[in-house]
């Protein structure tokens, strides 16, 4: 009698998470569409009906990221057969991969996800760009050196066809270099028996290649990198002491920095330097959480994202995201939710390292230094202004610290262009009052709690051109003292 057939083993898991996560059989598990589709994978010579099945993208993605090493060739055949026949297939395949929560991905599926991204990029298949960008937002993670390989291999193609992806890569890597100073990536490759996973390298192991990739793309495709706007210069400043970047500054950046700084930072760029979980949670705070209810959310956010290795170093990038990456509508601003300036204030007080505070303040004022009337967005400079004005009565030390830093920046950020920067900052003050972000600057110029020296400096700075000063203060200078009297009550 033949032995009874052994029960078929359960399909392999994609995500970590024990008993207290929904099982893959539950509709609320991100694995569910994969598990319910994985049996439909067609034979090595699929029919048209097989290829057009709506389950195929999930089935193929499942097979792609779970099959043991080496990846069966027939999966590539099916992928490109379906993609050639139905152009939307590649998108569906990439979306299926993107639907998995990356932080929970098990090591083998994670290695394979990178392989899938690399295969789509190699074939220039639609859908590879969002996949690469989403992975770039995740660095550092175990095995992430593969991303560098893919980008290095396709840099010229990307520069022509997907310049934003190349610029994203440069920005993600520059931020990684300056932020972490390449602290070890969290976690390890635990897929022991698999050569593919064991051979996966981390970016921390190839710092030299990472630096030379950034330098060569900056040299060969500077126009593409300039898409990042002034945040490119901000990032390069932080790396100015790294020898390779020192040379780059001298040869290339010095002459062009002023022009690049006139380009505002696009929104997509500020999102690159924070993970998608951070983005979701920050947006939830600024769109849904009412004033007074934010404490617990802040605590959770800090525990999860800031109090981890390399976490605090993200604060300047989070500040940039808040200033340039998210501009709430009037409706949201009036709905009683926590304001952007308050979130920035909390972040500033969460910094414990001196250089992080300095970089965070620079991030907050960065658009002030290059503000041009009619060109710059008032929403980019609004959080700094509101934080200074709203802190003045209760948290005067914050206002003092910020104003002092602003003057330091004006004098020292770029000594050769000091006058231009001063003009931009004056213009920023003027526009903020003119647009009604603050009714006047009297809360600053007339507040006794603020250091006298700073107030005098501010008045002198603003009165450099009378027009701006009047605009900024909302009244002629000689009336300011009257305002001061009135304002004593507020302070």
């Amino acid at each position: 009698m033949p032995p009874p057939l052994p029960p078929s083993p359960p399909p392999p898991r994609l995500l970590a998470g024990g008993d207290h996560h929904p099982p893959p059989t539950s509709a609320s598990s991100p694995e569910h569409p994969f598990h319910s589709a994985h049996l439909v994978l067609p034979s090595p010579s699929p029919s048209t009906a097989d290829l057009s099945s709506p389950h195929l993208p999930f089935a193929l993605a499942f097979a792609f990221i779970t099959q043991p090493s080496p990846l069966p060739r027939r999966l590539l055949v099916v992928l490109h057969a379906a993609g050639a026949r139905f152009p939307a297939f590649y998108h569906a395949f990439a979306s299926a991969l993107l639907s998995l929560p990356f932080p929970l991905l098990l090591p083998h599926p994670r290695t394979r996800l990178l392989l899938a991204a690399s295969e789509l990029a190699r074939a220039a298949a639609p859908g590879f760009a969002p996949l690469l960008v989403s992975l770039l937002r995740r660095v550092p993670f175990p095995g992430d050196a593969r991303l560098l390989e893919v980008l290095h291999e396709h840099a010229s193609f990307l520069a022509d066809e997907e310049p934003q992806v190349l610029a994203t890569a440069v920005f993600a890597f520059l931020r990684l270099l300056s932020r972490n100073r390449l602290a070890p990536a969290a976690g390890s490759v635990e897929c022991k028996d698999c050569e593919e996973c064991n051979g996966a390298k981390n970016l921390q192991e190839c710092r030299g290649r990472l630096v030379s990739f950034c330098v060569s793309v900056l040299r060969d495709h500077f126009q593409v990198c300039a898409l990042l706007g002034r945040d490119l210069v901000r990032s390069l400043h932080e790396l100015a002491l790294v020898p390779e970047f020192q040379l780059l500054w001298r040869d290339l950046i010095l002459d062009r920095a002023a022009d690049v700084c006139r380009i505002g930072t696009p929104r997509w760029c500020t999102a690159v330097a924070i993970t998608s979980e951070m983005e979701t949670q920050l947006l939830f705070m600024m769109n849904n959480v009412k004033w007074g209810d934010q404490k617990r959310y802040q605590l959770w956010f800090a525990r999860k994202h800031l109090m981890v290795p390399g976490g605090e170093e993200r604060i300047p990038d989070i500040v940039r995201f808040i200033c340039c990456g998210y501009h709430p509508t009037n409706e949201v601003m009036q709905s009683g939710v926590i304001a952007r300036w308050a979130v920035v204030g909390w972040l500033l007080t969460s910094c414990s390292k001196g250089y992080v505070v300095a970089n965070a303040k620079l991030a907050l004022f960065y658009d002030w230094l290059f503000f041009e009337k009619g060109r710059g967005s008032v929403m980019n400079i609004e959080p700094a202004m509101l934080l200074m004005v709203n802190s003045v009565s209760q948290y005067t030390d914050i206002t003092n610290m910020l104003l002092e830093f602003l003057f330091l920046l004006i004098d020292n950020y770029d000594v050769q262009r000091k006058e231009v920067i001063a003009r931009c900052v004056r213009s920023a003050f003027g526009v903020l009052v003119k647009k009604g972000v603050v009714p006047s600057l009297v809360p600053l110029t007339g507040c006794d709690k603020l250091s006298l020296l700073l107030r005098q400096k501010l008045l002198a700075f603003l009165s450099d051109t009378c027009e701006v000063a009047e605009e900024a203060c909302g009244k002629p200078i000689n009336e300011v003292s009257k305002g001061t009297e009135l304002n004593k009550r507020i302070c």
Partner: protein
Amino acid sequence: MAHREADAPSEGTAVSSIRTVKLKDLVPAATNTVNTTFIVLDKAAPSARPSHRHPHAQAARDSGGGGGREEKEVTCLALVADETAAAHFLLWGGECGAFEPGDIVRLTDGIFSYHRGNALVLRAGRRGRAEKVGEFTMLFVETPNMSELQWGPDPNDGRRMVQEAVVSPYSQIFKPLR
């Protein structure tokens, strides 16, 4: 005080396993019929005691704390809430390490009842299940806290409980952060 149909203990009918309630509609009852979703606001330190062949011994074993020695029953009290109310949730065994503040948890077939004397807590119990379904993105209120209410038998129906008084508007164990 009047309360809703959804609260009525339904003696394990099939309907009970799919009907979901908000925390403000919780009523103490000795049935595993609570289906709800909440966010964990805070968590106390776990405590352990000998298990004494308690029905939850299985859960305690799962936590892996014993390692062959005397089995301990590990529990951990948490403050949970949704947009209508808060409550105390008692984590058992492996649940203690599985959920952190900020986690969004779906409870199926849970129970809201008096535990060890007089602590009114929500828990998964032997038949229920708690699963992490998300993180962070949920609004909540910290008052009323359903575990800080005094309940008594319904004069019209002795098998049911009704709210009699508010012991404390907020949790007395987990103070609100302001």
